[in-house]
């Protein structure tokens, strides 16, 4: 045990002295997440701004005074575009993503056809690659349906038919998501960054303490000390896992100041990421950091050089970083097996924390069991492989 502690402190001191490597780990781990969060919040803020403005961009407003009148009665202002040059310019803007509102085109024969009951065609122009404009299409279409409804009701009422006939059912929307759950849709990127932080923190240390040590030629002298292999491996693993945990902690802490900078007020009110969440996130990483560190070490111990080990670890790095993608690609719901896959389990649990759910032991336990089982197997393998590594 003492020997494991000696190895642990040495490995930790060794890794912490490698300032340049540490800095290169910390920059992506600490800055990328908050920056992305702020960018996303900017996008959402612009949606909100648009919704608050209550403005419709119309081409040919003079052609349809009835429709324009309806829009104005809904307290929308009309931003009228006149002339083909301006219209083409606006369409170009939509395609290039500069314009953030769809264009409502009213044809010249609108009023005449409306009176004749011939259903004039109104176009809502947008570009499906332009996200901001696309988001407002729904609102404009809603307005047009409202207009339809009003016209139809008036026509029926004039013929003495009850309006109720038009509405066999009443529709009312009710959002079951809590405030936090809505915000979680945005903050679902946070777990991904924290899992990556664990990986970044553990990766270099894991490779350096195994393949690196072998490449430097210091593994053989180390094994000539009368310390059991198990103690050496446990000491090394402890340092690697702790580094992964440290970077993960810093990464989750970095989101706390980041949320103060959120540009959208409503978002800021919804986004709950305080110290309890940081702590919960951090504790959830323990099995991941333990298992991941041991696995990276097991992979690297068989490699003769740092370079070879790095190539070998690509598989784990890719698998772990893609784990959160599973939830994004399959939003149909969380499957029970998620909780048994390292990385995915942590992602699922962190999302639950963000939604404000209380975690049950049944949810947490599978990840812990898998993480520590993985640790035990991998460390056993490393200890066994160590002498084989120098014997060749």
């Amino acid at each position: 045990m003492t020997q494991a502690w000696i190895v642990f402190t040495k490995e930790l001191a060794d890794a912490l002295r490698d300032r340049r490597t540490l800095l290169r780990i910390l920059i992506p781990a600490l800055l990328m997440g908050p920056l992305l969060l702020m960018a996303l919040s900017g996008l959402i803020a612009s949606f909100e701004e648009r919704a608050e403005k209550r403005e419709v961009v119309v081409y040919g407003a003079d052609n349809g005074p009835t429709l324009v009148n309806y829009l104005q009665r809904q307290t929308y202002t009309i931003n009228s575009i006149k002339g083909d040059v301006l219209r083409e310019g606006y369409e170009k803007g939509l395609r290039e993503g500069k314009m953030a509102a769809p264009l409502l085109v009213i044809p010249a024969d609108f009023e005449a056809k409306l009176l004749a009951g011939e259903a004039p065609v109104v176009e809502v122009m947008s570009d499906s690659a332009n996200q901001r404009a696309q988001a407002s299409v729904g609102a404009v279409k809603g307005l047009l349906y409202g207009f339809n409804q009003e016209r139809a009701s008036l026509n029926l009422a004039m013929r003495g038919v009850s309006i109720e006939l038009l509405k066999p059912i009443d529709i009312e929307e009710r959002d079951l998501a809590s405030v936090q759950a809505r915000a979680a849709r945005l903050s679902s990127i946070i777990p991904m960054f924290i899992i990556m932080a664990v990986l970044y923190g553990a990766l270099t240390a894991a490779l350096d303490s195994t393949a690196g040590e072998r490449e430097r030629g210091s593994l053989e002298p180390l094994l000539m000390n009368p310390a059991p292999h198990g103690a050496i491996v446990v000491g090394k693993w402890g340092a690697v896992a702790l580094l992964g945990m440290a970077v993960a902690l810093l990464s989750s802490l970095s989101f706390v100041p980041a949320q103060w900078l959120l540009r959208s007020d409503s978002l800021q009110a919804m986004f709950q990421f305080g110290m309890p969440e940081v702590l919960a996130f951090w504790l959830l990483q323990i099995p991941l950091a333990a298992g991941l560190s041991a696995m990276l070490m097991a992979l690297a111990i068989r490699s003769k050089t740092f370079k070879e080990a790095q190539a070998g670890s690509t598989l784990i790095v890719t698998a772990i970083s893609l784990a959160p993608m599973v939830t994004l690609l399959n939003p149909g719901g969380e499957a029970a097996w998620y909780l048994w896959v390292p990385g995915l389990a942590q992602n699922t649990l962190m999302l639950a924390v963000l939604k404000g759910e209380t975690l049950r032991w049944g949810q947490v336990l599978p990840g812990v069991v898998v993480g520590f089982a993985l640790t035990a197997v991998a460390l056993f393998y490393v200890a066994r492989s160590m002498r084989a590594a120098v014997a060749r």
Partner: protein
Amino acid sequence: MIDIQDVHKQFTTRTGAGLFKRGRKSVVHAVQGVSVTAANGRITGLLGANGAGKTTTLRMLAGLLAPDSGHIAVDGIVVGSRESAMGRPEPAQPPRGVGGATRRTGGTLAALARMGILGDAHGLYPRLSARENIAYFGRLQGMELDAANARAEELARLLEMQSILDRRAEGFSQGERMKTALARALVHDPANIVLDEPTNGLDVLATRALREALRWLRSPEGGSKCIVFSTHIMQEVEQLCDEVVIVSHGRSVAHGNVPALLELAGEQRFEDAFVKLAFPEEIAA
């Protein structure tokens, strides 16, 4: 006191693999009957050409490789035996297959604690200072931090490396690296010192300093250490060794002190004597 009796070791390697074809397996007899007896207070040299089996023998002594057969004991503790109790030699475990790397036994650990080994790989930790490199191994040998530090300073005086003691190993020269590695191997004041080609890459001054240090360690004031070192350099053997074991093609072919070996070969120059003893078939041809 190091006693190596008739050790054997063979490796399997692949030869001449092509792009689509795996190489044939072939067995290399690295060591086939090396015996070395090194007494306390003496410097025993393992002299042999490149590839003669010196390093493999010393790696078996360090417990990194398990010998296929034979017997290795350090101060009466059999390397590879189960028992760690001193003075109660146990029979070595049966051979563990080619290149077998299994758990180290209590006997190996106890033997390692009585040896200071400077192998052919002697990498340092570049981000630790020389002192920390030395103290780390001292602590793994079971020393307290203070004791390990004190010992590092003592060794720095012996090896004339005080000026680099608190510098990081990053920018060390070959000689400075070798001195640090040697100090690291000697930190626990072992009764037996094993050096694998320690003068490789050292300049004249550094070689001289090393020689002086070894002489001192052999003397009663230095602790009458049992020193075993391997080399292929005749001069070193002539100047330093009390006892020489000539290793050739994996076998120990002759042993004795320098004058005895000269007499045995009937030669005036030690180099001629070595060639005659190590490669008799080439002389005959």
